[in-house]
């Protein structure tokens, strides 16, 4: 049997499905002895995945083996548990695994810890209560167990605040490891436990990040591991790399930074290619913290740019990409395009690089408009058909909406574009890719009127010529035709349009024919033309509500209700799957009937018990949740989806406004040193270097470039030219910041004469954060929320004394709750909101915040009040958007967390020329993002079916007068904003959604004095997080 199983493994490895052998693998694990059993477990772990149904059959075997007295069997069971285990069955074996933590054998303890690590990965809330045992494992006398526990800590410390106290232990462990205190067999090529060291360094860097006092604890040990790792072996380099990374992540210490920088220097110049790669990778990381380091290695970087290995080249570009600023962007982009020309064979990389290039090009680094247009031209002609369609789309949007800069500059950009396209069209167009042609024709159609003295006739002629090219696809032709339609108003153009439309009105392509006919009519009737093109702002009923009556009519005549495609697929899938339930039970009921096991009696799992449960349910079933025979209405799903699409589109437009600039370091890049004789090649390289690294260093950084060299002089002039434009650019950048913050709801009550309160209010809408912030360049931008338009606002002193009284309470911090509430913007005060809490204050300014719950968003309102007598100006608020963007997007889209922290600061000038800052932090909880989801019972049923995974937990019931179920559910409803869909007998169904629209369904049932809850959601960890709050709420009741 064992041999056969190995062969089955072989088959699967070669890509042939061997699903018939799965059940035998489980059998082998159940019945085999020693090696057979192990192979059975191995086969199971290779064949099945976490959600496979057959895995349930393994639970009993695992349980038996965990209880076995045979160490080997226990060992095997723990190994397989830490590889894969069904999430819902964890409670069944958790006590057994916990018990193994105190086993005298090292290997059992180690594997038990690894199993707990697995549990933590798949269901963190289930193991919350054994954190103290993790600590014990960390202090285990055996290094192997300790190593295993580090895996858990590396996960836990992603949220470092509660583990700062462990820093000392980690440092001590690392010191011992580095000092060679471990047994010799942990060494690898005479290096003590290298992977353990790497793990520890990662943990330390997480702990020390942005935390000076914690970082201070680790300086010494980091220094020591830098010193110790001096042997010439790859593995020591790996440790060094991790060390350098840690040094640059934690709170900086100059001495260590210097050593780390030297270390990287050695890496980068190393002849060993792998080491060079690692050095460059480290450099990419480091230059983000300290761009001047790139200066030290400029010559090496230049050499790497010409390296024969494209991976090295790519990594070098990565470094350059991170040091881009206004002055060197032109050179860097040129290098990137060079690279792209050479690796044309790899569309993957090409595509990804473009995605990366685009924000770089479109954001305010581009030195001037002309350059931008020209670079985009190169990008388009190079990218060809491989290019991702987003790039031309974004580009066109950019042209249409501009950078959010002044109108004049935008027009200039468009004129440049039109100009360059005309020149392109006049030359040979055969080699231009289709997408580029489409871009060109759209831009010409829209903006060619901007250019003075340009006859529409001329443009139309060029377009007509393009139309006749043989290799133009019909898609591009239709773009061209619509461009012509826009231009067809002029007299000369009309004649030409007539000619063209006659030719194409007999085209075989129906779309083209249609457009040609449209063109014909538009060109003949100028009035129609004018009317047509002023009718831009058409209202679109995106919800398609006008179809409602049609739909309901169709439904009443027996048509099937609409199902979203994914729902259909899901149902298909479920039909195909093995049905374990008896027939004709509506689903929520059958689910509750699968009351397989409780925490208390885990071993009772058997089909018969659930079947007997079913027969009971069956009787009650028809009286409890009625899902059949209710008239169905227009599917909620489809409806919702369309709204989403519209929202998304709107938000994409917002996202298209460029990311904010990362305050370019303006450094004097004037060269001072004169160098004598240098070879021509060297000079070339140095020139390149100085152009690449311009603007990076501080004033005193020296450049190698010779002063006497005439060509370099010429070059420097160029940089200066760029310099002069840079002021314009930065101006634009500041205004662009406004536009990208347009979603910020500013509300200035400064001029409010009625109560003359001198308060600034800014509502920060979170609306955008839930949306498509997934574009990578968006997430890192540091957003400064501006005050209205000018960026400078004078906060006037409190004038009349009477008003002052109810505003500034003598002796107190100055603000009372009521006065704050009265300042609350009216449009927000109608919304449900949390209490206004004072976050921080100083002698002249106090800052409070409040969360208002809009139906589709969470508004985070910051209220600033001036509590001094003097005026305050130069006010600016910064929110640490790294937290908001990164954490929120993960919070909402990938994996919900129970809470996230928002941090920010306010800076202002109370005394002219003296800027003060006020820091604040606040926490946002998952519950802030939960909204009720209003559903009918039958919609609920449908939605329930469309999710497959569920999480089950027993909750406390609130015992009071009346129905305990009702009482409990309404308590949950009050606290967590849930929607109770229906309560029937001892069961209730509840629904909520996580913003923007991730539903979570709860099915509750009274079960032996407690409330059994099943949760289903498309987001895997949402149920876990929600359960946490449910538990918390019920504990507090």
């Amino acid at each position: 049997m064992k041999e056969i199983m190995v062969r089955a493994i072989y088959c699967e490895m070669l890509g042939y499905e061997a699903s018939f052998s799965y059940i035998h693998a489980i059998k082998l694990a159940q019945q085999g002895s020693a090696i057979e059993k192990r192979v059975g477990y191995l086969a199971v772990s290779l064949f099945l995945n976490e959600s496979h149904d057959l895995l349930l059959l393994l639970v009993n075997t695992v349980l038996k083996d965990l209880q076995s007295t045979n160490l080997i069997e226990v060992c095997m069971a723990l190994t397989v548990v830490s590889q894969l285990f069904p999430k819902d069955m964890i409670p069944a074996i958790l006590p057994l695994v916990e018990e193994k933590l105190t086993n005298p054998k090292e290997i059992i303890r180690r594997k038990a810890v690894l199993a707990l690590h697995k549990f933590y990965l798949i269901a963190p809330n289930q193991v919350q209560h054994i954190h103290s045992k993790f600590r014990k494992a960390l202090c285990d006398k055996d290094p192997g167990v300790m190593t295993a526990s580090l895996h858990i800590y590396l996960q836990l410390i992603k949220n470092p605040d509660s583990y700062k106290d462990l820093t000392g232990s980690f440092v001590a462990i690392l010191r011992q490891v580095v000092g060679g205190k471990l047994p010799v067999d942990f060494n690898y090529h005479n290096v003590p436990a290298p992977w353990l060291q790497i793990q520890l360094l990662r943990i330390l860097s997480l702990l020390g990040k942005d935390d000076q006092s914690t970082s201070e604890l680790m300086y010494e040990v980091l220094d020591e591991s830098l010193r110790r790792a001096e042997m010439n072996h790859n593995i020591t380099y790996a440790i060094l790399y991790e060390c350098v990374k840690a040094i640059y992540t934690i709170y900086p210490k100059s001495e260590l930074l210097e050593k780390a920088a030297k270390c990287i220097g050695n890496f980068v110049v190393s002849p060993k290619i792998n080491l060079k790669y690692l050095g460059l990778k480290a450099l990419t990381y480091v230059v983000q913290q300290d761009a001047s380091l790139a200066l030290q290695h400029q010559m090496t970087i230049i050499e790497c740019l010409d390296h024969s290995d494209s991976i090295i080249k790519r990594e070098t570009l990565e470094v350059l990409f991170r040091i881009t600023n206004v002055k060197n962007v032109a050179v860097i982009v040129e290098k990137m395009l060079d690279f792209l020309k050479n690796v044309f064979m790899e569309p993957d990389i090409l595509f990804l690089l473009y995605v990366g290039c685009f924000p770089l090009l479109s954001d305010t680094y581009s030195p001037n408009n002309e350059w931008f247009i020209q670079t985009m031209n190169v990008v388009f002609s190079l990218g060809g058909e491989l290019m991702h369609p987003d790039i031309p789309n974004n580009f066109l949007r950019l042209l249409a909406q501009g950078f959010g800069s002044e109108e004049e500059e935008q027009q200039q950009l468009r004129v440049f574009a039109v100009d360059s396209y005309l020149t392109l069209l006049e030359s040979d167009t055969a080699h231009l890719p289709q997408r580029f042609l489409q871009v060109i024709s759209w831009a010409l159609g829209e903006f060619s009127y901007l250019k003075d003295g340009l006859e529409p006739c001329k443009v139309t002629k060029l377009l007509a010529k393009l139309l006749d090219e043989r290799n133009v696809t019909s898609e591009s032709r239709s773009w061209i035709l619509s461009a012509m339609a826009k231009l067809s108003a002029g007299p000369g153009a009309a004649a030409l349009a007539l000619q063209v439309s006659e030719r194409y009105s007999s085209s075989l392509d129906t779309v083209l024919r249609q457009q040609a006919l449209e063109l014909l009519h538009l060109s003949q009737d100028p009035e129609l033309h004018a009317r047509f093109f002023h009718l831009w702002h058409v209202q679109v009923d995106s919800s398609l509500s006008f179809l409602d009556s049609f739909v309901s009519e169709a439904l009443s005549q027996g048509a099937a209700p609409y199902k979203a495609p994914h729902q259909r697929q899901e149902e298909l899938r479920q039909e195909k799957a093995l049905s374990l339930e008896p027939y004709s039970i509506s689903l929520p009921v059958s689910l509750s009937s699968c009351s397989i096991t409780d925490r208390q009696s885990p071993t009772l799992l058997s089909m018969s018990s659930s079947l007997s449960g079913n027969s009971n349910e069956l009787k009650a079933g028809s009286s409890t949740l009625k899902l059949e025979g209710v008239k169905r209405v227009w599917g909620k799903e489809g409806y919702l989806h369309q709204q989403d699409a519209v929202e998304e589109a709107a938000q994409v437009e917002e996202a298209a406004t460029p990311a904010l600039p990362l305050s370019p370091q303006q450094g004097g890049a004037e060269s001072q040193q004169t160098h004598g004789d240098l070879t021509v090649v060297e000079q070339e390289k140095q020139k390149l270097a100085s152009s690449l690294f311009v603007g990076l260093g501080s004033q005193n950084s020296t450049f190698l470039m010779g002063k006497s060299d005439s060509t370099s002089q010429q070059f420097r002039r160029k940089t200066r030219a760029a310099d002069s434009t840079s002021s314009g650019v930065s101006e634009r950048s500041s205004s662009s910041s406004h536009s990208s913050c347009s979603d910020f709801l500013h509300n200035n009550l400064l001029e409010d004469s009625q109560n003359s309160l001198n308060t600034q209010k800014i509502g920060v809408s979170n609306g955008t954060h839930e949306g498509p912030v997934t574009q990578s360049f968006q997430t890192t931008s540091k957003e400064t929320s501006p005050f209205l338009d000018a960026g400078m606002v004078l906060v006037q002193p409190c004038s009349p004394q009477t008003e002052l009284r109810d505003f500034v309470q003598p002796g107190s911090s100055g603000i009372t709750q009521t006065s704050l509430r009265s300042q609350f913007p009216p449009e927000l005060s109608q919304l449900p909101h949390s209490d206004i809490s004072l976050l921080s204050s100083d002698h002249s300014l106090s800052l409070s915040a409040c969360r208002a719950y809009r139906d589709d968003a969470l508004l985070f309102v910051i209220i600033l009040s001036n509590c001094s007598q003097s005026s305050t100006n130069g006010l600016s608020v910064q929110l640490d958007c790294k937290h908001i963007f990164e954490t929120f997007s993960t919070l909402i889209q990938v994996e919900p967390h129970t809470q996230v922290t928002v941090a920010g600061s306010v800076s202002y000038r109370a005394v002219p020329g003296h800027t003060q800052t006020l820091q604040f932090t606040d926490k946002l909880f998952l519950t802030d993002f939960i909204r009720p989801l209003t559903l009918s019972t039958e919609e609920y049923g449908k939605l329930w079916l469309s999710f497959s995974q569920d999480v089950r937990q027993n909750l406390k019931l609130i015992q009071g007068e009346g129905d305990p179920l009702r009482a409990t559910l309404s308590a949950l409803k009050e606290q967590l904003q849930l929607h109770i869909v229906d309560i029937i007998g001892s069961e209730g169904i509840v629904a909520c959604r996580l913003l923007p629209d991730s539903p979570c369904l709860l099915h509750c049932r009274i079960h032996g004095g407690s409330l059994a809850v099943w949760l289903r959601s498309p987001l895997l960890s949402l149920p876990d997080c929600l359960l946490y709050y449910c538990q918390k709420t019920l504990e507090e009741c």
Partner: protein
Amino acid sequence: MVESGPSTRRPRIVALRSSSSMIKFFLMVNKQGQTRLSRYYEQVDLGKRPALEADVVRSCLSRHKDECSFVEHKDYKLVFRQYAGLFIVVGITDTENELSIYELVHNFVEILDKYFSRVSELDIMFNLDRVHLILDEMILNGHVAETNKTRILAPLMVLDKLAEG
């Protein structure tokens, strides 16, 4: 420098999805492109595996000796090491330390060498289960679980003894 710290960090050019460092898969392939061992630490459809493996081998074979042993492939990195006609390729996330994985591969081969006393491709073919067992001791859920040679081999040795006895 401190102020401009984390919030000004720019994304990598290639957008990488996973943030934590882990191993995605472990492959042993010979020069002809035949898979000798494969272990996935992240769910990959059975049907997609051969294509992925072929891609991976192709991109590794195309590398010169004097080029570095790391390749970017889709959204992860490949670390490969050649032993005679056999390639060992490990797919990792971007944040993982490439060089440490490179050495981990060597550690693995050293262990195989110790167990089989001078390992060859045939040993791996005919003892697929044992190689898997060794690998499972070493890498678990995409994380390095154990690197101590004696400890990795211990469970297997016991099993072998039981089988003989």
